């Protein structure tokens, strides 16, 4: 009894040990002990390991498989158990373990190198966890391992070369990790490998030549790595291979013809590499091939593949290469083709639509976009009765859309944009009950939009932009209940919008801009509650907006510009998520509603060219995202509300042509983004605030035609980006600040019609980009014209007229070679004009008493004018003499012309037998000959070359030529 008691005690101690820490140094604890140690390292929120307890026999624990004698664990399967924590380093004590499956959990930490001691392990499945670190080299000791799947983890480093020792391995899964380095060449030792998955790592280097040793390999996937170099020809020896996926690497060179020997291949993808050369026709030997994707490489030459040989092919993708020529004839055999997808987009294929494609009867998707195909679309297209997607955009297809397209009853998307298709949209289109997307934009189609189109009730997107469709939008458009996008911009549509459009309740984008659509907006638009963007600009819409538009709460973008809408803009303000509102150039009236400010994200507000009145609402200060703010050309009154100083994002601030008054607010200087400020044609008074100089990004500053007074601030020189400065027609006084020389990018400067005094600062000569105009006219400027203005060599117009400028016109102004308008008139200039100015009109210089030289009177005359003036009678006498003489000369010449014409008529009549057209041609030559004779002597040398051919042609008509000569001689003698 004592011994049994003793035994019980030992057992109790063992269990106690398994619960507490091990420090007693027992040689061989039971496997359950190590399993509980394993459990203690895991976090088990789902309670999968709840029954792993010393109270129960371990073989009853979840996820375990035991040996028949219940002493050893053979398998652990805890896949998809929501476990986290790390894998115990002590698992190796489970020496009989054959299967360890911890896949699809959230385990972290590294793969314990001690696992290499599990000599009986056949399957190690750790995929889809968050394990990190390297693959332990010891993994290579698992001589019996058949399946190793550790992908979809955070593992990194090189793939240990010891993996080549796992000669029993059938499945190796290392995809979706961060492995780098190259594929170990020892991989070729794995004679029994069936599946090798290396996708989505950072592996580089070459594919090892030795891979051909994997004789049983059926699936090789190494896509999305950085593999480079050639595809080894030895891969042709992988006769069992069914799937080869090397997509998205950096492989180069050409496809080895040996790949044509992989007779079992069903799937081949080389997409997204740098492969080049011709596609080898040997690939046609791959009769089992179902999917072939060679897209996005640099393959060139003609398409050498044939569906007639690749009988099992269902998908062929050759898009994004440099393939030329047409699709080969007999590409498909009509009765046997299984080809469902043919993608040839983005090549340089050319020629007409290959009619033999119509034999690919199983085709579901055909993409020939972005090529150079031309000619008409074949009428037999409907033979492709299974076709769901037809994509022919960005080619040069021409001619009509064949009406037979209506028989392609499975068609879901018809993408034909950017071609040269003409003619009408056939009414048969209405038979396409499954049609969801129709893109015909950028073609030359014309005629009306057939009402039958509205029978295509599956339509979600219509885009006819940039055609010549005429007539009105079909009355029945409301039948398109699924329509999201209606894009009809830039056509020639007219008539009113049919009210039924309001029943397309799913509509999100409506673009009818750039047409000739007229009438008012139908009240049914209130049902378009999902409408997000509506653009109606450049049409002939009119009348007030229906008040019920206020129900459209989802509007983001509204552009009704360039129409004749009238009344209040309030109906458009129901949405509080407007980002852009453009009503430019309509007849909207009334005040600007402060409700606009509910759209706090409004960035573009353009209300210019309307009849809006009242004040600018002070609530606009809440529009802090405002970027483009244009209220110009209205009847707004009052002052600029100070709250607008909160709108710090304003780049375009345009208030011109209103009745706004008050002073220019100094806070304008705090708008750091300001690029364009136009307050012109208002009633602003007071000074130009010096703070404006802080707007260093300002490109255009237009304050002209106001009542601004005081000096032009020195700070103007801080506007170093300024291109255009227009301050004309104000009451500005004082000097032109010399700091203006810092505005180095200015190309247009207008300061005219003010009360500026002092002299023209010579520093203006530093503004060498001045081009459009420098206008200082109608001021009180005095002193001399600075010679530095001669540096403005790009200047095209210079106006300093109506000032008090004195002295001579500086000779340096002759350097202004770009000048084509010059006005120095009405000053006190004196002396001789530079001779190069003689080309300018008199008016450029008038009103300068002491100025002389062409085009004014010559300086000699003007000098003697005081004492040698002609009397009035002398002037009259000279004029009479001139008139008389010139009348005489005219009469003589008239007589000569009549004589010449008379003689010439005689000649013409005498030779009418030659035929009318020919006759006329001879006449032309004759006149030419005459001119030539008159010019003889003067210009002969210059013109001799040019006239030589026409002289030659005159040879057959010497007779007429002689007559002509006679006529002239007669004429001469008569004089």
């Amino acid at each position: 009894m004592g011994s049994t008691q003793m035994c019980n005690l030992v057992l109790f101690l063992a269990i106690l040990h398994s619960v507490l820490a091990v420090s007693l140094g027992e040689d061989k604890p039971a496997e359950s002990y190590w399993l509980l140690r394993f459990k203690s390292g895991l976090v088990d929120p789902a309670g999968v390991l709840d029954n792993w307890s010393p109270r129960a026999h371990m073989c009853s624990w979840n996820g375990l498989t035991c040996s028949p004698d219940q002493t050893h664990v053979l398998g652990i399967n805890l896949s998809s158990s929501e476990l986290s924590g790390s894998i115990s380093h002590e698992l190796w004590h489970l020496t009989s373990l054959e299967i360890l499956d911890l896949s699809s959990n959230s385990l972290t930490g590294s793969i314990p190198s001690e696992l290499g001691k599990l000599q009986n392990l056949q399957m190690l499945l750790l995929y889809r966890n968050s394990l990190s670190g390297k693959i332990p080299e010891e993994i290579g000791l698992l001589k019996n391992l058949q399946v190793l799947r550790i992908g979809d983890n955070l593992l990194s480093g090189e793939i240990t070369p010891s993996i080549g020792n796992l000669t029993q391995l059938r499945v190796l899964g290392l995809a979706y990790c961060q492995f780098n380095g190259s594929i170990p060449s020892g991989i070729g030792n794995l004679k029994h490998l069936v599946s090798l998955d290396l996708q989505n790592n950072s592996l580089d280097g070459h594919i090892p030549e030795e891979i051909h040793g994997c004789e049983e390999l059926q699936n090789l996937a190494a896509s999305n790595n950085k593999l480079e170099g050639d595809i080894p020809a030895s891969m042709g020896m992988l006769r069992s291979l069914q799937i080869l996926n090397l997509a998205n690497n950096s492989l180069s060179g050409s496809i080895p013809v040996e790949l044509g020997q992989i007779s079992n291949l069903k799937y081949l993808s080389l997409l997204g590499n740098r492969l080049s050369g011709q596609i080898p026709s040997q690939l046609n030997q791959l009769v089992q091939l179902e999917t072939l994707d060679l897209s996005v490489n640099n393959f060139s030459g003609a398409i050498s593949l044939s569906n007639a040989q690749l009988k099992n092919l269902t998908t062929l993708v050759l898009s994004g290469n440099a393939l030329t020529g047409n699709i080969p004839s007999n590409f498909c055999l009509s009765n046997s083709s299984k080809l469902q997808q043919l993608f040839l987009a983005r090549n340089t294929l050319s020629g007409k639509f290959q009619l033999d494609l119509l034999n690919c009867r199983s085709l579901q998707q055909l993409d020939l976009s972005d090529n150079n195909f031309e000619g008409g679309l074949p009428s037999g297209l409907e033979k492709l009765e299974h076709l769901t997607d037809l994509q022919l955009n960005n080619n040069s297809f021409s001619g009509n859309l064949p009406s037979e397209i209506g028989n392609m009853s499975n068609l879901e998307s018809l993408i034909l944009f950017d071609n040269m298709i003409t003619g009408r949209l056939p009414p048969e289109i209405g038979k396409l009950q499954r049609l969801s997307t129709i893109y015909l934009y950028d073609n030359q189609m014309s005629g009306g939009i057939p009402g039958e189109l509205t029978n295509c009730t599956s339509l979600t997107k219509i885009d006819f932009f940039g055609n010549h469709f005429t007539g009105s939008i079909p009355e029945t458009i409301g039948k398109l209940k699924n329509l999201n996008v209606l894009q009809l911009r830039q056509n020639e549509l007219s008539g009113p919008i049919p009210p039924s459009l309001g029943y397309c309740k799913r509509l999100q984008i409506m673009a009818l801009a750039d047409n000739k659509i007229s009438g008012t907006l139908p009240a049914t638009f209130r049902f378009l509650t999902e409408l997000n963007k509506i653009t109606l600009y450049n049409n002939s819409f009119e009348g007030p907006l229906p008040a019920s538009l206020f129900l459209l709460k989802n509007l983001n973008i509204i552009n009704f510009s360039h129409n004749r809408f009238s009344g209040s803009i309030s109906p458009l303000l129901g949405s509080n998520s407007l980002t852009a509102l453009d009503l430019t150039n309509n007849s909207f009236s009334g005040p600007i509603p402060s409700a606009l400010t509910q759209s706090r994200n409004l960035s573009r507000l353009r209300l210019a060219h309307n009849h809006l009145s009242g004040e600018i609402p002070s609530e606009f200060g809440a529009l802090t995202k405002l970027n483009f703010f244009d209220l110009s050309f209205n009847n707004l009154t009052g002052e600029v509300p100070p709250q607008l100083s909160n709108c710090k994002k304003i780049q375009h601030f345009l208030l011109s042509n209103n009745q706004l008054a008050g002073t220019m607010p100094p806070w304008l200087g705090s708008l750091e983004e300001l690029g364009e400020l136009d307050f012109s044609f208002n009633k602003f008074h007071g000074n130009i605030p010096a703070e404006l100089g802080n707007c260093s990004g300002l490109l255009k500053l237009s304050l002209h035609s106001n009542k601004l007074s005081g000096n032009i601030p020195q700070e103007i020189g801080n506007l170093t980006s300024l291109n255009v400065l227009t301050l004309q027609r104000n009451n500005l006084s004082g000097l032109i600040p010399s700091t203006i020389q810092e505005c180095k990018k200015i190309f247009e400067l207008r300061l005219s019609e003010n009360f500026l005094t002092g002299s023209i600062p010579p520093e203006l000569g530093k503004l060498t980009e001045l081009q459009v105009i420098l206008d200082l006219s109608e001021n009180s400027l005095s002193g001399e014209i600075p010679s530095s203005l001669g540096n403005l060599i790009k200047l095209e117009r210079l106006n300093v007229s109506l000032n008090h400028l004195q002295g001579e016109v500086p000779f340096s102004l002759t350097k202004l070679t770009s000048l084509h308008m010059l006005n120095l008139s009405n000053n006190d200039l004196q002396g001789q004009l530079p001779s190069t100015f003689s080309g300018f009109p008199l008016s450029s210089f008038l009103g300068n008493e002491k100025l002389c030289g062409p085009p004014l009177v010559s300086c000699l005359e003007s000098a003697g004018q005081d004492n040698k003036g002609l009397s009035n009678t002398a002037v009259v006498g000279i004029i009479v003499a001139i008139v008389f003489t010139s009348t005489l000369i005219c009469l003589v010449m008239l007589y000569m012309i009549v004589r010449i014409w008379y003689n010439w008529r005689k000649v013409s009549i005498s030779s009418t037998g030659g035929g009318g057209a020919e006759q006329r041609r001879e006449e032309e030559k004759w006149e030419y000959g005459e001119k030539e004779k008159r010019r003889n002597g003067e210009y002969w040398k210059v013109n001799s070359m040019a006239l030589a051919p026409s002289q030659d042609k005159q040879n057959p008509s010497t007779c007429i030529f002689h007559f002509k000569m006679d006529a002239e001689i007669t004429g001469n003698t008569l004089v």
Partner: protein
Amino acid sequence: MAHLYLLSVFLSLLLSISPSLSSNSEGNALHALRSRLVDPTNALQSWDPALVNPCTWFHVVCDSNSHVTRLDLGNSNISGTLGPELGQLKHLKYLELYRNDIGGKIPKELGNLKNLVSMDMYGNKFEGEIPKSFAKLKSLIFLRLNNNKLSGSIPRELTTLKELKVFDVSNNDLCGTIPVDGPFSSFPMESFVNNRLNGPELKGLVPYDFGC
């Protein structure tokens, strides 16, 4: 699996063909130009291709029909190259790209700018030849290409530009002789200095590209 993958690729391709909501050829041309340029000071920040037209972009001026007539990018710290798409701005009158760091060849497509009055590309790093296609710029009055790295001879075709008043190619690497016909009879010698040019053309005696 493979089929599903392909289908999803196809579908995503379909989705990527968004409706042509922003199609405007001049705006697209300018936006293509922007993509070729390096713009460290964000001069082109306002060039938003989603807008109806480029007329509210800074440095762009339009006429009343919303056609681009001026492009003012002088002194803008931009580098990069020009592309053929600039030739699509058919209504452009002023092309001002002076004093930047733009390099590469001058695209021959600029010859399509029939309405161009002024082309100011001085002070850049343009290289290659002056395009012969400039002979099509029948409205051109001002052509300033000085201070670049242009080479080759001055195309004789330019002598047909009747309106040309200002022509400056000084400080380049041009060779051959200087034309004397047409507007070239009146250009000052300063327009040609600092090149490898061999003086005025001597018709019939020396080929115009002598020494090139």
